[in-house]
């Protein structure tokens, strides 16, 4: 119901309201400041804004949370991107000697975009998504979340809905932020299994031995495959899609498959294919992976200076807010239920209905002024609340690692 109310023409009116009363600046700054462990971390961070009429400005940077707020409220950006932490303040990069202005650190990021799956989804194409193909995103998140944690040892992952047709992952661990270009590209390649462009038919080829990463990823995919591909996408139900699947199967198996599919309507392919599969042929696994395994854009992950859409940015075409996603509730996440900017602005005008369990003692008292307190009460009245709460939890988890760092540093300087 919320999506039909959004009209892109209203953005110029909605954005000022959003940035004045709803955008969670406190949490946002808390995140990007990373506990103040490293000097000038926030100040040297590049932001870029897309303003009205597609005007794009890069190398924006801010000294304090307050400055960030004021600028955003002044410019009312349609889109916000976050870039790297540089060696100098980005807004002064022209004054720096050429060659010495460099991108130093940034979160490790991943961008999964539904258009990259167009060759294997039948329900939608291009920018459209529906509940059937959304499962691809769920699978992608499960696979990558597991790999980044178990294989790479990363702990602080923020998954964000992009607002239209995909998801982003921000890996915020210190080790991740310090990765070189070569390291980022190695991580992205390790995570890539689907290879090839328009000219490649078979995009997944497995050889013995099957690496533990592939086995673990397959278990995640298998959990969803039957429901998603066989029922939802109905890959064996229509001639052209059956042919596409068959193009991936070795010829000697094809005869058997043809025989059987012309007689019965198969749902559980895995078991019958296993009967006929010869040793060292993993085509049933390859098919599942080609249809469901996450497709990453390596170029997004590789660059230290790459700019990526910011969480809590608005998507101008759909009006949806790029909200953080709680992986614990992943299976019930519905992209069509994500609040739009028009919805939450509307909710602001409604009288307070007394949110359950939300008290202002939850907020730290110290340096909050009245406007801040009011803003915090404001977003809590809207559908944005639960997403900001989840973001808070994410930040709390990271905060304990910052405390450790600060203690270590002050010990080194013997400051107590």
């Amino acid at each position: 119901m919320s999506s039909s109310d959004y009209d892109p023409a209203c953005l110029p009116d909605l954005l000022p309201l959003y940035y004045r009363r709803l955008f969670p600046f406190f949490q946002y700054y808390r995140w990007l400041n990373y506990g103040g462990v490293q000097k000038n971390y926030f100040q040297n961070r590049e932001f870029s804004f897309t303003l009205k009429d597609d005007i794009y400005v890069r190398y924006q940077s801010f000294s304090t949370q307050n400055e960030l707020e004021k600028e955003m409220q002044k410019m009312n950006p349609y889109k916000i991107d976050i870039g790297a932490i540089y060696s100098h303040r980005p807004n002064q990069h022209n004054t720096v000697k050429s060659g010495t202005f460099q991108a130093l650190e940034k979160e490790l990021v991943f961008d999964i975009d539904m258009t990259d799956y167009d060759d294997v989804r039948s329900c939608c194409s291009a920018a459209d998504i529906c509940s059937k193909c959304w499962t691809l995103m769920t699978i992608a998140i499960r696979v990558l979340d597991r790999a980044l944690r178990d294989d790479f040892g990363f702990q602080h992952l923020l998954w964000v809905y992009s607002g239209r047709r995909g998801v982003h992952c921000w890996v915020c661990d210190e080790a991740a932020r310090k990765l070189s270009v070569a390291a980022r590209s190695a991580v992205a390649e390790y995570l890539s299994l689907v290879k090839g462009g328009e000219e490649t038919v078979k995009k997944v080829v497995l050889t013995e031995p099957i690496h533990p990463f592939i086995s673990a990823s397959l278990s995640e995919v298998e959990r969803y495959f039957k429901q998603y591909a066989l029922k939802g996408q109905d890959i064996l139900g229509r001639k052209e899609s059956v042919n596409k699947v068959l193009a991936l199967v070795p010829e000697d198996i094809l005869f058997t498959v043809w025989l059987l599919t012309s007689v019965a309507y198969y749902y559980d392919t895995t078991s019958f294919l296993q009967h006929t599969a010869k040793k060292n042929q993993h085509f049933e696994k390859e098919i599942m992976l080609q249809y469901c395994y996450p497709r990453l854009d390596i170029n997004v992950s590789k660059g230290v200076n790459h700019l990526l859409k910011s969480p809590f940015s608005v998507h101008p075409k759909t009006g949806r807010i790029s909200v953080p996603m709680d992986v614990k509730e992943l299976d019930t996440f519905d992209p069509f239920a994500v609040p739009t900017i028009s919805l939450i602005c509307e909710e602001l005008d409604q009288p307070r209905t007394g949110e359950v369990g939300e008290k202002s003692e939850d907020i730290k008292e110290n340096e909050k002024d009245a406007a801040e307190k009011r803003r915090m009460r404001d977003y809590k009245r809207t559908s944005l609340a639960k997403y900001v709460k989840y973001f808070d939890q994410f930040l709390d988890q990271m905060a304990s690692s910052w405390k450790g760092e600060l203690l270590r540093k002050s010990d080194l300087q013997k400051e107590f």
Partner: protein
Amino acid sequence: MQFSRRRKNHVANPQMELYGHALQFYGKPPLENISLTEFETFAVDRLKLLKIVESLGVSHVKLSEPYKHKLEYESKVLNLSHRLSTVRADEYEKRRKDHISHFILRLAYCQTEDLRRWFIQQEVDLFRYRFNDLYPEEKLEFLHINNLQYDRISAEEKENLKSELVNSSAVISGVVVEDQDFYKVPFQDALDLVRTRKVYLKAGYVYIPHQDIVAIVLNDFRTRLSKALALTARSLPAVHSDERLQPLLNHLSHAYVGQDYSNQKNVGKISLEHIDSLSGKSFPLCMRQLHQALRENHHLRHGGRMQYGLFLKGIGLSLEQALQFWRSEFIRGKVDADKFDKAYAYGIRHMFGKEGKRADYTPYSCMKVILSNPPSQGDHHGCPFRHSDPELLKQKLQFYKVSPSGVSQIMELVKGMHYQLACQKYFELTHNIDDTSFSLNHPNQYFVESQKVLSGGKDIKREKDPQSSQETAAARRSTPAQTTEPGTSQELTETTADLTPFFNDA
């Protein structure tokens, strides 16, 4: 003070201590004076070696028998082989040459991202080949000399991880797990193994058997070299102010690409209406494919826009023409004129050096197209001989009216990983000539040669046979060596001028 007694007996030459091992990390720069002649010869020889490393890497599987065999042969010819010489004094000279030549090339190749990347890649490949060739004791000695220590895991942990370890690599069997020590190394220090998923990775650590320690060493080598080049780049202005060195360093850094088709002599000679027919007649297959995809979909993704856009620049499209070309095509698709001007025009101007850091990007060489940025879903760029499914490639060639025997010749070359030769064969078949007179390494070169054939006609058709053209090239190459004499900068300029034909020949 009794230094002399402490010297190891087997080192007859005290200078050998400087080069205790045939291989090194090139941590310390040479501290001696050398003549300009040596400066040149050493640099040129090493560059030749690195170019050989590059071309062998494309046409052979690295570390396969033919690869090793050829590389060893060429290393010996250039006196840069890591294998022990029979005469001790020769061994010292060789290691010295290796050391000095590496550092000279650093000066030439530290200046841009592209140059650095190329240099690092070839040096890493060379190091990999040499290290791999060492005896186990020599490998241990290298690790020892360079203080490389890695964390060993306990037998218990090994036992617990046994099945994962065995499944993580084709070369690790149960026997290997039992017999060898395994080391736990942070994944950042083993990127090549991580990238190719040839190793077990858990909680940020890779588990490596002793026999594979080389990958770690390589990563170490690569990281050190990368940092060193960044530092070298900063001290470059001082080096460039030396007039004796500057011309040579410039020549060296342009040599590896040969012609880069970035000069704009032929701007405006192509008219947009001809592009469709040109694409069929004179474009290499990769560009023909991109052009077709653009016409069909009225769109190309970033990788395709870069590869094709820069190629068009190279054949002579001006910025205005390029903007018109892309705009008119994209408008037929889902992009409206406004959006094009805002989103895509910037990129095109960037390609022509009119935006951002104003770098005038050069069209991609075959090496670059084949080796970097492989295409994924929705992409049409890359090298069709390298990146297309063999079946689809065959169909495409048949569709473009290549004879069946021609198609199978091409597919043979593709199977052998000789992608540029396959493209050359495609050139021969589509232009109806027996032999190309050139060695293909750049899409724009294909275009230029094609235009020559189509306009010049008869005298180009039957070129002198490849044998004699190689001989003349070799003859030209040997001349510069004979004319080098040490001395004044005047002579050096003359000498470097003599080297020009060598570099342009590449």
